[in-house]
């Protein structure tokens, strides 16, 4: 969505225009869902939290001020807060048996490849979820959203260099953690 169109839609949405908010919802729902899913590792909670993100956004959109930061940064901030609350509220982390995990269809992958990736994916995702939240956010934006360091910097409120540095440090930590699992040898 071009920036000038988005700002017009935002202006209308902040005046209470339902259709405008609907357009924003359609544009961002998948991104927010992906963010929440990778932060929680659970489709049901991801759906619940995604819904809450948009309800909260809807009730507070009249307070939104365009300060040169993308609207998505605002939505991600809401999502981040809700995910943080979700983690805090859970007295103990529930491990979902693999059999109960709904089958997710990755864009462009045939089902058999999806099945093969599941186990390895779960192991690496567990490691990623042990990282600090901002590092998880960085990886999600980098790989899921395919954003550049500059775009990530805009959303995370950091410079491009800082994002690059954080990304490198994150990779180093993951590499050390992954060493024991020996994921890198597989393929």
């Amino acid at each position: 969505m071009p920036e000038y169109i988005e700002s017009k839609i935002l202006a209308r949405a902040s005046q209470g225009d339902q259709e405008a908010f609907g357009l924003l919802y359609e544009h961002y729902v998948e991104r927010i869902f992906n963010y929440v899913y990778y932060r929680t590792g659970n489709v049901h909670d991801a759906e619940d939290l995604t819904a809450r993100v948009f309800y909260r956004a809807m009730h507070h959109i009249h307070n939104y001020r365009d300060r040169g930061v993308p609207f998505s940064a605002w939505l991600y901030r809401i999502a981040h807060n809700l995910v943080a609350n979700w983690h805090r509220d859970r007295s103990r982390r529930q491990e979902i048996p693999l059999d109960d995990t709904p089958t997710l269809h990755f864009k462009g992958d045939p089902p058999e490849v999806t099945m093969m990736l599941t186990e390895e994916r779960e192991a690496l995702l567990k490691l990623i979820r042990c990282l600090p939240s901002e590092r998880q956010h960085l990886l999600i934006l980098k790989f899921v959203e395919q954003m550049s360091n500059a775009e990530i910097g805009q959303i995370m409120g950091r410079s491009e260099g800082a994002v690059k540095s954080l990304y490198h440090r994150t990779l180093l930590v993951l590499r050390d953690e992954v060493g024991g699992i020996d994921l890198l040898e597989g393929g």
Partner: protein
Amino acid sequence: MEVTRRLMEASKDKLASLENRLAGILKPIQPRQEFVRGLRTKIQITTQPVIVRRFTRRQFLFLLIAGIISTTVLLAMGVRALFSLLTALGIIQQADRQLRNQRKIASHRP
């Protein structure tokens, strides 16, 4: 020197391999269409039209001054009305008379 170079290259290879692995694992996931449509419907239903008017600084100052003046006028009128009411009822005169009598009595005492 050669060992250090090889170690660095091996480290770079591992990082590149890790990046490839991450790219293969962290892929966009499509939420269920029923969920997306259902939430859209709920949002449309629960959205109440919010009328938000943002005042400019000038409008805000005008409203502030108008508010102060009208409040002052209202208070003055209220006080005046109360005074008139008490006067009409003779309460003030009565109180004044009582006060004078008390002073008179007090001055006659040895």
